């Protein structure tokens, strides 16, 4: 057989040097391979060429003229010159004209890449003068658009449209009048721009540039974003003054984010340098804080905690690393003699996790982000991905561009509704009926995956009987969604036009008193349609915190040991052998139960790490009363937040950019967190603090655990976690550094990681159908005294309660005050316009906010984000009633009344 070698590799000569490229490469690729400095202003290194700037001009032997290298296909044997006098002369002319479009400015330090190229072509001053003068558009909080420096290459428009799929920026007009602008031609801030900064990162001339003073960057450190559960790769710039640059860069090789970022990841790391970071340990004496050394603080904390061995609870942080979480749970179990350790998942996805454990035997997202893009139908339920998981929302938009159907189920008109093929708007609390009716359509119309059900599941009979009530007519009456729409959604989900279907859900499903029923109804739907266990399908609870997956994996849950292992005799013995101490066998308390146990005295000492329960618990007045009962409260965090104010000892922790470790994201990918700068003041990594505390508490209890808590680095902690957790067994910091993030299960050092779960089997063997019942819609519904239904959720520009984002100036500019979304008809009745001050009160408390009149909410409903701004927080209002199975509070529904306040 004759193999054409030329087709595999092509050999070119560039400036007298030989270079090999693959078929399909351009001449510019060959030039860049040799690292020859050739201007290429409009070329983003990981995007297709635009061919707009005409600066990468070269000479090719036998080719007429001076073609642009970016659009010239490389061919075997080509002889290319970047230095040929013709190429240099014409290129210099183009650079001269380009530079002539621009006006130098004192506010700007040169023209980025263009400045360098002009210098190399000995262009000190352009020959021509600019035709237009345009003022700087400074309407965005993090960056400016300075059209005096814009060369109309269009990279920003491509970044906005093709990378982020936002579509805010376009090139308007033609000829001399052409300019970068937005729809309606107004200022940037009037557009749909989400401040993600993708355009700023790609701009070659600094026309789009961050607002902070450009400081020299000493080094760049690749790490993982500290905000949501998507887990994007970010590259921190460390300035010569040891501070982080305001803008982080994206990481194109990161497999979870592929070079995409949102506003928080790009511009939100400034909290690390906040003026009110606590830099020294503190001990409270006579009601006042005293700054002390680590020894004194740790001894004070240990004295207190040792008094309450067994009457103790800990709240770990889903914002900290796997290593931090592992050490905390080991301390709680091995030293404090209790399994009372939990984290914030209780308040977000515990119903999902509990339901998935019962149905399948594992509590993780089954698919990868890649599967969203390969799916033929995406059903997104109770999740505002554009605000809370922006980079996942980009994946959805990419899928839709490929032709996937998007079905959105949400009582609130979130941004995705406007892009959806079908939007179902059920009445809050009626989700079970909705999904049961869809399941019935799938069965009745013969769309069920009979083979999958027979081979891979059990319990279908009893479940099928439980659907008898869920007729389309009845479901339409209960949910308020038309029978036709329910049936259409079911058909698309069961039989998408291509590939499989992904089911994606958020807090809208879980934060209800019937949360676990909601989750089961969804899981049943995926089972009856057989939409999991292969590429392009799967079930995804969208995780909120950066490491909420990892915190549970590492064992910070009261129901399971690390790796979700049970408290059975062989496992306990195994841990005892490894630890030299036996973990208790009795299930511990979840966080909401712990708070109740403060009141009964069952728990008298509490260790809270990187959490702020006095902002995140429902019914805050009640929670404050409970915390008052504690004898000892030790808080370990970055800031003196609401909970820390009540503490006896405050231990200052290092932020994500100040320590080594790993985070595990929503697609089970374990990724490295790397130290970029030294901790602020005396702050220390959480794992170190907890280990020191553990040794001191143990000593007071007459035990020596110095060998069990003797790690010298985060990497050693990870090795112990991996040794005890079979699905992490093949991972180590060294391997993650070498190969990038890997997805568990990854049991051995040569295992490549796992893209999707349940391909062959379920951890339980067969998956179980669990009948889900439509119970009362909510524990508290509107009545004459409290006639409005309050819904809570999150915002793009703030992170959960806001402890971090309130300390990032630009984010505060974008969302400075608490807004109460209200329907125009209700606003009319109250006589309020957008911006009017309102008082919202429930049976438990009240808050002050500002009206935002919008059709995004239904008449009779209000929406308030749960961020705390100016002492107003939604959780003063919310109802602590919880789901009996998973113990999640009903944040999503409570009854309130709203009054207009006269402007002060």
């Amino acid at each position: 057989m004759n193999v054409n070698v030329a087709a595999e590799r092509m050999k070119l000569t560039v400036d007298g040097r030989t270079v090999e490229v693959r078929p399909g490469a351009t001449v510019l690729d060959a030039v860049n391979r040799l690292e020859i400095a050739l201007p290429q202003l409009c070329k983003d290194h990981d995007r297709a060429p635009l061919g707009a700037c005409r600066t990468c001009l070269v000479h090719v032997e036998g080719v007429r003229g001076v073609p642009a290298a970016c659009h010239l296909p490389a061919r075997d044997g080509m002889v290319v010159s970047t230095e040929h006098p013709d190429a240099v002369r014409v290129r210099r002319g183009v650079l001269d004209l380009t530079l002539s479009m621009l006006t130098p400015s004192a506010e700007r330090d040169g023209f980025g890449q263009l400045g360098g190229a002009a210098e190399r072509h000995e262009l000190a001053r352009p020959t021509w003068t600019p035709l237009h003068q345009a003022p700087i558009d400074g309407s965005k909080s993090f960056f400016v658009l300075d059209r005096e420096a814009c060369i109309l290459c269009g990279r920003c428009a491509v970044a906005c449209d093709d990378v982020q799929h936002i579509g805010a920026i376009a090139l308007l007009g033609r000829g001399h009048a052409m300019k970068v602008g937005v729809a309606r031609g107004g200022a940037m801030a009037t557009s749909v721009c989400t401040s993600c900064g993708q355009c700023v990162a790609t701009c070659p001339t600094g026309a789009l540039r961050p607002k902070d003073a450009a400081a020299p960057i000493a080094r760049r450190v690749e790490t993982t974003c500290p905000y949501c559960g998507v887990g994007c790769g970010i590259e921190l710039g460390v300035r010569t003054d040891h501070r982080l640059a305001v803008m982080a860069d994206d990481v194109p090789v990161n497999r979870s984010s592929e070079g995409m970022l949102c506003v928080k990841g790009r511009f939100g790391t400034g909290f690390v340098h906040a003026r009110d970071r606590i830099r020294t340990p503190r001990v409270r004496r006579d009601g006042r804080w005293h700054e002390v050394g680590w020894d004194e603080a740790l001894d004070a904390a240990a004295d207190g905690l040792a008094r309450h061995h067994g009457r103790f609870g800990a709240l770990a942080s889903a914002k900290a690393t796997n290593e931090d979480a592992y050490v905390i749970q080991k301390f709680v179990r091995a030293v404090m003699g209790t399994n009372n350790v939990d984290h914030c998942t209780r308040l977000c996805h515990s119903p999902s996790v509990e339901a998935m454990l019962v149905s399948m035997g594992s509590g993780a997202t089954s698919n990868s982000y890649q599967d969203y893009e390969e799916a033929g139908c995406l059903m997104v339920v109770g999740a505002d991905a554009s605000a809370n998981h922006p980079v996942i929302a980009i994946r959805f938009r990419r899928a839709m561009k490929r032709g996937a159907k998007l079905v959105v189920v949400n009582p609130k008109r979130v941004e995705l509704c406007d892009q959806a093929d079908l939007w179902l708007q059920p009445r809050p609390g009626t989700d079970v009926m909705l999904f049961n009716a869809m399941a019935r359509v799938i069965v009745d119309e013969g769309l069920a995956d009979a083979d999958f059900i027979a081979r891979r599941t059990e319990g279908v009979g009893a479940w099928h009987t439980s659907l008898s009530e869920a007729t389309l007519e009845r479901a339409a009456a209960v949910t308020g969604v038309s029978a036709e729409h329910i049936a259409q959604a079911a058909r698309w989900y069961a039989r998408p036009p291509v590939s499989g279907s992904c089911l994606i859900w958020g807090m809208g499903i879980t934060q209800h008193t019937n949360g676990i029923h909601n989750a089961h109804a969804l899981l049943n739907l995926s089972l009856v349609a057989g939409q999991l266990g292969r590429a392009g399908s799967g079930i995804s609870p969208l995780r909120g915190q950066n490491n909420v997956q990892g915190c549970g994996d590492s064992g910070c849950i009261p129901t399971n040991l690390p790796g979700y292992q049970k408290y059975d005799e062989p496992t306990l013995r195994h841990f005892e052998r490894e630890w030299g101490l036996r973990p208790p066998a009795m299930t511990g308390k979840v966080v909401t139960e712990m708070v109740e146990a403060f009141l009964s005295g069952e728990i008298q000492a509490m260790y809270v790490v990187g959490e702020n329960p006095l902002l995140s618990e429902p019914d805050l007045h009640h929670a404050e009363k409970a915390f008052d009962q504690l004898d000892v409260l030790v808080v370990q965090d970055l800031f003196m937040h609401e909970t820390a104010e009540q503490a006896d000892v405050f231990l200052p922790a290092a932020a994500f950019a100040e320590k080594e470790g790993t985070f595990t994201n929503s697609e089970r990918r374990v990724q490295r967190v790397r130290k970029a700068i030294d901790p602020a003041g005396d702050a220390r990594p959480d794992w170190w603090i907890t280990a020191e505390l553990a040794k001191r508490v143990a000593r007071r209890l007459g035990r020596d655990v110095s060998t069990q808590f003797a790690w010298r680095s985060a990497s050693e902690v990870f090795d112990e976690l991996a040794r005890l957790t079979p699905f992490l067994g093949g991972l180590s910091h060294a391997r993650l550094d070498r190969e990038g993030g890997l997805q568990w299960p990854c049991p051995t050092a040569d295992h490549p990681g796992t893209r999707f779960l349940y391909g062959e089997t379920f951890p339980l063997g067969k998956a179980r159908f669990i009948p889900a019942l439509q119970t009362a819609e909510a524990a508290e519904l509107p009545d004459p005294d409290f006639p409005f239904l309050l819904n809570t959720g999150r915002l793009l520009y703030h992170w959960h309660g806001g402890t971090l984002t309130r300390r990032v100036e630009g984010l505060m500019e974008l969302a400075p005050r608490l807004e109460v979304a209200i329907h125009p008809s209700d606003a009319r009745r109250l006589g309020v316009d957008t911006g009017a001050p309102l008082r919202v009160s429930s049976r438990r408390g009240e808050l002050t906010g500002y009206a935002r009149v919008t059709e995004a909410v239904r008449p009779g409903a209000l929406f308030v984000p749960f961020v705390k701004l100016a002492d107003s927080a939604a959780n003063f209002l919310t109802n602590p009633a919880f789901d009996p199975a998973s113990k999640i509070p009903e944040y999503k529904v409570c009854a309130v009344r709203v009054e207009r306040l006269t402007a002060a």
Partner: protein
Amino acid sequence: MSVQSIAFSTGQLAEVRRLQGLYPDKRGALLPVLHMAQDTFGYVSLEVEEYVASLFGLSPAHVHEVVTFYTLYFRQPRGRHVVAVCHNLSCHLAGAPLILAHLKERLGIDVGETTDDGRITLQAVECLCACEAAPMMQVDDRYEMNLTPDKVDRIVEALR
């Protein structure tokens, strides 16, 4: 024109779908659909841009980009008739400046403006490929050639 009135009829929507089906990527039909919108709603307002964007699943900014690039989309209300005088080389040499000045005086408007009664919008445009009969102008969709001021008067008179 109120915002509510911006919607194609059922028949027009079928035509939009037919046009979209003619191209590998449906956005290829953007130009003809924008022309349909202009004919239906009189001109391409910002609201019309947004409506058309929604028919294509495109961002309003992208449609704004297209509309501002081409000169045959009117972004302001235009008169019932559009008189477009060629001012390119052949017509210029054959007396187009005189024709244009005459029209401006007779109609009492400048180039780019519309008469108060909404009858006529006046434009000056580039070559319309009828140099053999210069000076010439386009009135709505027909050519008027070998113009003189008298001939222009008669043509304009006939426009209602």
